[in-house]
């Protein structure tokens, strides 16, 4: 029982992080129709900003600065690298995104060196209930994730900008004709995605107080997997996919025999989903006009 409880909590908190990153992927895909593979590295940038501002020993300041910095960075990347390519072939955009990813990683390595940096943002300690001991940071992560997701869902459903986002993702041309500033909406999407990535960076540091230039690489790919499993372009899908992947990962690590193959198992799920249900769990089926 306690084993199940602690595994589920750890899985949900890890899944929450994946979900938060996956939201960035899925929103950008839904609205700009591009896979922003540099998204994972925004997590790393967020982590380093926290590391730098933790010199002032004020976690809240560090978190705020990380969010602000990542939002600016996300918007700048969109304006400089992606906007000129609007209308270019998807492959060109994809390659640009991968290039940005390497650029960010290399810059981080030049500035901070390649050795891991240790930074303790805040030590929440751990708590025992119903016989299961878990790190409080896992519960905090889970709680914040739920709040952020709820807020985001409400934002998209009930605000003007949110509804404009839905409109752009449904039909960019029609939205533009209705007077929606499509470029503005894409910028907002990148800003929100980057802010979420900064939070994901924070949660990684709460889990394990160590940061390196490749911190965002694996979570980025996992979150992309989560977004596809849930149905890329779908916000609830990204949440579902993220949580599912987190739980699968934690259960897999619990079973000694299959633990070394955890990554393979997660990516196998992706392959199976792509074969059986290419649009993911919550993705909309679209009839392609030929």
């Amino acid at each position: 029982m306690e084993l199940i409880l602690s595994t589920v909590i750890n899985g949900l908190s890890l899944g929450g992080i994946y979900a938060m990153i996956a939201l960035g992927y899925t929103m950008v895909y839904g609205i700009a129709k591009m896979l922003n593979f540099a998204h994972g590295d925004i997590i790393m940038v967020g982590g380093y900003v926290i590391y730098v501002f933790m010199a002032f020993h004020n976690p809240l300041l560090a978190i705020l600065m990380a969010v602000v910095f990542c939002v600016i960075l996300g918007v700048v990347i969109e304006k400089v690298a992606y906007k000129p390519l609007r209308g270019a072939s998807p492959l060109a955009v994809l390659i640009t995104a991968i290039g940005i990813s390497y650029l960010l990683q290399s810059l981080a390595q030049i500035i901070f060196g390649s050795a891991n940096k240790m930074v303790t943002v805040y030590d929440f300690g751990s708590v025992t209930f119903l016989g299961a001991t878990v790190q409080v940071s896992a519960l905090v992560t889970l709680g914040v994730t739920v709040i952020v997701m709820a807020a985001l869902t409400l934002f998209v459903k009930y605000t003007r900008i949110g509804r404009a986002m839905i409109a752009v993702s449904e039909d960019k041309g029609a939205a533009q004709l209705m007077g929606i500033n499509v470029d503005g909406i894409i910028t907002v999407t990148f800003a929100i995605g980057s802010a979420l990535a900064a939070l994901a960076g924070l949660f990684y540091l709460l889990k394990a107080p160590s940061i390196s230039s490749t911190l965002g690489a694996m979570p980025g790919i996992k979150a992309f997997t989560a977004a596809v499993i849930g149905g890329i372009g779908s916000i609830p899908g990204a949440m579902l996919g993220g949580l599912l992947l987190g739980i699968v990962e934690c259960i897999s690590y619990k079973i000694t025999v299959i633990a070394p193959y955890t990554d393979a198992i997660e990516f196998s799920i992706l392959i199976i989903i792509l074969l059986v249900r290419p649009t993911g769990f919550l993705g909309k089926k679209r009839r392609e006009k030929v």
Partner: protein
Amino acid sequence: MKHIRLIALAIAVIFCVGLFAGCGETNYAANNTEYVIGLSGPLTGGAAMYGSAVANAAQLAVDEINAAGGLNGIKFKLIATDDMNDATKISTNYSSMYESGMQVSLGSVTTQPGLEFKNLSADDNVFFLTPSASGDDIPTNPNGFQMCFADGNQGKVAAEFVNTNYAGQTIGVFYKSDEAYSKGIYDQFKTNLDSSINVVETTFTEANSSDFSTQIDTLKDCTFIFMPIYYTPASLFMTQAKDIIAADGVYYGCDGFDGIDNIDGFDINTIPQEITMLSHFNSKATEGPAKEFIDKYVEKYGASTLNQFGASAYDCVYAIFNAMKKAIDGGKDIPVTISASDLCEILKAEFNGGFTYQNGVTGENISWESTGYVNKGAIKYIIKEAN
């Protein structure tokens, strides 16, 4: 169309020339004015502490030897290249050193790149004595020797320790399943463990080496955890587990734990549990060659990279120096322009022929088996007592 063919032909020719260039029996050492020792190690990256320690200590030994007049007046020169603990960097590092006249080598600092280094050096017949690449497969070619304990040996010694102290109890094991170093020690540990001991084991991989909450949860009832892993993930595990694992618990590591008390941003005293490692070097020694080495090293490079890897590298340089000296005293000719292959034959004959390195920093009478494994004593070194 014609142009494309021409370009393709040109490319093919260029690549073929490149291939054959590697095949010649060139003696790159022909223009040497000093004996050149090569070394590849992680001078940056997650295992940088090891590479830096080895490069520093090897340089210290080389400087001392040169200050004392070298070998019959011929001085030594160390070339240290950075591989970031990445096996794919070895090929470039090795070629650049070999073409710069490397005659003898300290091999690679860590195991995974070391396996690559071993293959390349076997092709050219370059002698290496590695201070710290502890993989069981590292010295299996006749030109390779180790100064550190092989992984299998570390696993065996650790298992014997557990058999004696934890008979009939439950212990935890935490290792990295996709790393030769960690898996190698673990396999031998498991083989040599008594069946009376109940083992709870859990693993992690390179891609997922920072969040250990699931693994900690698995091991939370263990009071003795064997961790044949490197210091960076170990420190992360300990930080995350400090309130969950029993405060009087013991973390028992191998040489990969060395330097865990010198990580920037990680205060070992915030960890309540005991941290112990199996070692061949006592970094708190108060007498003997170890003490002399510590004083010299700290004076020149500071205490932050003082560890057994450096101590071992220092011994490696002197062991090679002594073996060369012994060969010359025995009538062999070692000119400064000797080819790596010729020097390799001479050193192999010495190391296989009963050469003993006395009064080393990492052991008294150090000798080698014909397989390349080292013979010397091990010590249990407590890095930090339980609070």
